[in-house]
């Protein structure tokens, strides 16, 4: 249900206020789809690139947790792990 809501949210952005946003292509890899679906609803994906490659694994874990706990991002637990693993592998050190 939550995933459905987020997908709706993401598609709403694709056609409305974000018409002028250029797509940000992240590195291909396992989990990229989860990153796009879970992170891209609330912010453009250049946020992730901008904050790289300096984060340690601990820092990426903390950032994902912050998005869920402090910002209320509706990310399922298994997705959260996939997203964090992807970020550590491709945008961490």
């Amino acid at each position, binding site marked *: 249900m939550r995933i459905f809501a987020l997908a709706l*949210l993401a598609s709403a*952005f694709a*056609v*409305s*206020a*974000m*018409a*002028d*946003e*250029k797509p*940000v292509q992240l590195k291909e890899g396992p989990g990229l789809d989860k990153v796009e679906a879970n992170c891209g*609803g*609330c*912010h*453009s994906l*250049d*946020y*992730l*690139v*901008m*904050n*790289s*490659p*300096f*984060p340690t694994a601990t*820092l990426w874990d903390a*950032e994902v947790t912050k998005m869920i706990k*402090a*910002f*209320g*991002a*509706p990310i399922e637990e298994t997705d959260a792990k996939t997203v964090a693993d992807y970020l550590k592998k491709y*945008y961490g050190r």
Partner: protein
Amino acid sequence: MSSPLFRSIDPHRLTQARQAHHETVARAMSRRRFLAGTGAASIAALGPNGFGSARAGAVGLNLPSQLPEGTRATAVLDALPGKKPLIKLSYRPPNYETPIEYFRTAITPNDAFFVRYHLSNIPEVDAETWKVAVGGEGANGQNDFTLDDLKKMPAIEVIAVNQCSGNRRGLFQPPVPGVEWGYGAMGCARWKGARLKDVLDKVGVKKEAIEIVFDGADGPVVDKTPDFIKSIPVWKAMEDNTLIAYEMNGQPLPHFNGFPARIIVPGWTGTYWVKHVTSIKAVTKPETGFWMNPAYRIPVGKFSLVARFVSQETAVNVPITEMVVNSLITSHVEGASVRAGFPITIGGIAWDAGYGITTVELSTDAGKTWQRAKLGKELGRFAFRTFAYSFTPRSKGRRIVMARAANKIGQTQTSELILNPAGYHHNLIHSVAINVA
């Protein structure tokens, strides 16, 4: 928050604006390449203020080498609707900084003024139906004010620097997560509006009130994300220069700078300058939202600042308040080429929290010796103050030029960065390497 008051942005209109801006970017880029080829781009034309003027079009990314590698990879010149090409750090929410060339004058043009949002839901506000609700449990009454209502009140003008708390965050070593700003998350404009005090006096603030709380029309995408709500102490809200501004440099505020009205808190960092303001509340208890705590905090005892926000202080950290004294060399970008034996003028801007800049010193030998720069006209104690220093480089080679400012209460810039968890208050002495050929 969103309501029927606000129209959503027409994507078609945005597309048209974007195309026009892309052409501007292309022109700017080709001119920049041309100038870079001739070497002329490195030296600003000398103007009456000593060191030149902003050269529209001839702007570059000039990304500082200290920025994280990913920031350098993703930052581009990009124009938002109604804006010149600025340095895009994130598209959504839009975070765009001003290229350094626009800081060759004390006033930053509206269409080059930096853009900073925390949340992605940014409605286009209709000025006709916009109103700000003023009240709260710490007020005696409640009233809505339209734009016309505000304009009927005594109009106050103040020239003031609006600087993001995290300006230069991207230069911190070790890196700090967040928006990785270079030097341009700031600007100085002539703001015009009604005094916040005059508006508050209309509803009456109870003597028990301790904070004034602001909310704007922009909000989160997901309901559970904390809305961007900020408060300031009553004493600051009641100062003569604290405004609800509806004009910026003689024009209505640009959409991306808070149209139709925003809060102006001269001397304090931009976090309190709430855009598209729709609600102003007097309260008798401290505001507890995310954006007051844990966000926008500095550790106790690290910075020698005067203005305090006591109702928000804890044993370990305090809210960020006033800006630290700072300066920036803007006449020459990193790696600029100049000719040996010819006089050059190093210029830039200095600012503080409104105590007043007293001196700017320049070093042309990597900090070994310092000379006083000539200060430009003072446009008010909260404004950028231009400075200029002329000299003739004799020997060829790489030369490090540095600037440092001091203010009336003895505050100076740091020669060693003061580390703090959120990367605030970066006022490390700015240095630029120029090539004397």
